[in-house]
């Protein structure tokens, strides 16, 4: 039987639809998640989310399950946190992760901490879907990654799928999870096609994905850059270099075991991350390996990241800014040439 191929956008939409069918407590909240609210029926669902991810949910589930909000992230994020703590399982859309600054109190001080501060008496089964990443000439306030900041916060979980299959399975897990989960959708992946089963399935949180096994170098990469790392690995494979590529799709919990086991076999590490380098997923993985597999290393770990600057607008600058497969390949070669 031919495997069905759908886009990353469609995979997320399907996960939402199936989870909303399965559980009446799942609701969708956000800015223009339908669009055209209050207008005649033919003008409603005008957007279905600014990237069309939630399209059709209003028609299927009605306004009691799909809530368009004012442009008011602190307001609706707080409502989603409060609703999660008192009986619903909301999926709130934050249009761009760069906007988290205007609702960070509700994420970091409320969603992440209520359970702890109340001595375990609350749970906050909230999913925040948000858009990350550059490459679409959207400049500094619509191109950031920022998941390292969210991963830094105890009480939040964070995932960043790199393909349609993972997007569906991880969103299902995020929605069913009883803790708040930040679900990071890369802006450049929405039209990516991939094989996705129609039936509902869940990919457990906390599991990395070994995309390509290898023996010479371990590359840990996140979100879209996992695909870029895979391209680099394929190129180097032609030169006889065997690269293991691990998609660190679950940022928190992080699958330390898979990463450490790989480095203990390959003795070399490259981390590829689109987030800015200081206090990042990249530096965190390097620190993890330095602490727990130091003696296994045959060369210094490499980080392939953007420079520590905001995301630039102009194409030549942005193309320089975002790590390329060529840069990943250079870093891999560097770990093979250098010795500790």
């Amino acid at each position, binding site marked *: 039987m031919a495997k069905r191929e759908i886009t990353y956008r469609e995979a997320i939409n399907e996960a939402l639809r199936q989870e909303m069918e399965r559980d009446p407590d799942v609701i969708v909240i956000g800015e223009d998640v339908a669009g055209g609210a209050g207008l005649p029926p033919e003008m409603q669902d005008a957007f279905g989310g600014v990237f069309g991810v939630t399209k059709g949910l209003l028609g299927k589930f009605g306004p009691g399950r799909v809530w368009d909000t004012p442009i008011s992230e602190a307001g609706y994020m707080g409502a989603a946190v409060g609703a999660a703590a*008192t009986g619903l399982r909301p999926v709130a859309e934050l249009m761009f992760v760069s906007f988290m600054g205007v609702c960070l109190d509700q994420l970091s001080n409320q969603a992440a901490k209520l359970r702890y501060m109340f001595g375990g008496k609350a749970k906050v089964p909230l999913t925040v879907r948000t858009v990350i990443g550059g490459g679409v000439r959207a400049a500094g306030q619509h191109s950031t990654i920022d998941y390292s900041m969210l991963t830094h916060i105890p009480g939040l979980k964070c995932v960043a799928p790199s393909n349609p299959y993972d997007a569906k399975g991880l969103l299902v897990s995020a929605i069913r999870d009883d803790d708040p989960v930040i679900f990071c959708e890369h802006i450049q992946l929405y039209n990516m096609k991939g094989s996705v089963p129609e039936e509902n399935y869940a990919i457990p949180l906390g599991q990395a994905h070994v995309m390509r096994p290898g023996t010479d170098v371990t590359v840990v990469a996140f979100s879209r850059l996992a695909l870029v790392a895979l391209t680099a690995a394929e190129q180097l494979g032609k030169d006889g270099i065997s690269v293991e590529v691990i998609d660190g799709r679950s940022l928190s919990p992080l699958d330390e075991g898979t990463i450490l086991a790989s480095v203990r076999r390959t003795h070399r590490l490259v981390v590829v991350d689109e987030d800015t380098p200081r206090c990042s997923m990249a530096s965190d993985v390097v620190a993890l390996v330095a602490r727990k597999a130091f003696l296994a290393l045959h060369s210094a770990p490499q980080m392939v990241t953007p420079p520590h600057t905001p995301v630039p607008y102009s194409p030549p600058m942005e193309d320089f800014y975002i790590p390329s497969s060529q840069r990943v390949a250079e870093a891999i070669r560097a770990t093979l040439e250098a010795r500790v």
Partner: protein
Amino acid sequence: MPLVSKEKLHWAYERMTLIRAFEEKLHQLIPQHRLPGFAHLSAGQEAVAVGVCAHLDDKDFVTSTHRGHGHCIAKGLEVGAMMAELYGKSTGCSKGKGGSFHIADLDRGMLGTNGIVGAGLPLACGPALVAKVKGTRQVAASFFGEGATNQGAFHEATNLASVWKLPVLFVCENNLYSEATPVEYAIKITNIADRADAYGIPGVIVDGMDFFDVYEKALQAVERARNGEGPTLLEAKTYRYFGHYEGDAMKYRAREEEQKYSARDPTTNFKRRVLAEGLLGALEFEAIEKKAVATIEAAVKAAEQAPWPRPEECLADVYVTYP
């Protein structure tokens, strides 16, 4: 005076007296360093908490503030577990992980005191949304100070609740000072209730020193919410007897002003009026007062004798599951 049942009057005086006794006891204990942390006391504001919560049951949720002991007691939380929480003991209602800023009991509809000014307003829209989605008649109430109405969260939450017609009461306790800053400096309108106009919801001024005025106007707001007519902003004009925090020398306000408000003390006035109407007798009042003091003394004794949490307990309850 609105018609209030004898049982409700008894309950209201019992709760107000318990709040007063709780806060006055802390006012004694904190300078003696008998408990860790710091506290913001709500003595003087009892009528607001009790007058609003009189219309709520355990299924109705409340969000509160840094000055939240009164809201918790009015919502029916057990003062022994609250006191133990302030002492940081393992028997505390949040197992010693929250302290005064994070007292919660979801079974009693208390979604927490809160350390962030204004944060409770968006949170209260949550249970109100749950009520709307599930079609129950539950309501939510959010207490906050006048200072919170300068936060974006106030404006976002009131607008959102108005847009979605949520069953929620926004209860502003205007006690005239945000920390040490007078309301006249930080807010350039006389009545905070007027801010409701900006969001198309009713704004109602309440005498926060008068239980009966709060009770009557809160009832209207709760009925409006339960009937699906949307949110109300109540502005309770009130006063805190103690400082912003315990240890505050209160150089920013005049002793004459304090005397003016203590002459309108909500518990004393309640008692005088109820006695005059013959609804409760002097002996009943005396029994309630004695019981409140005894309850608080017992809570302190139990909290002082309770065990500390084990240090490694700090590792628990971050997540439900991880991974």
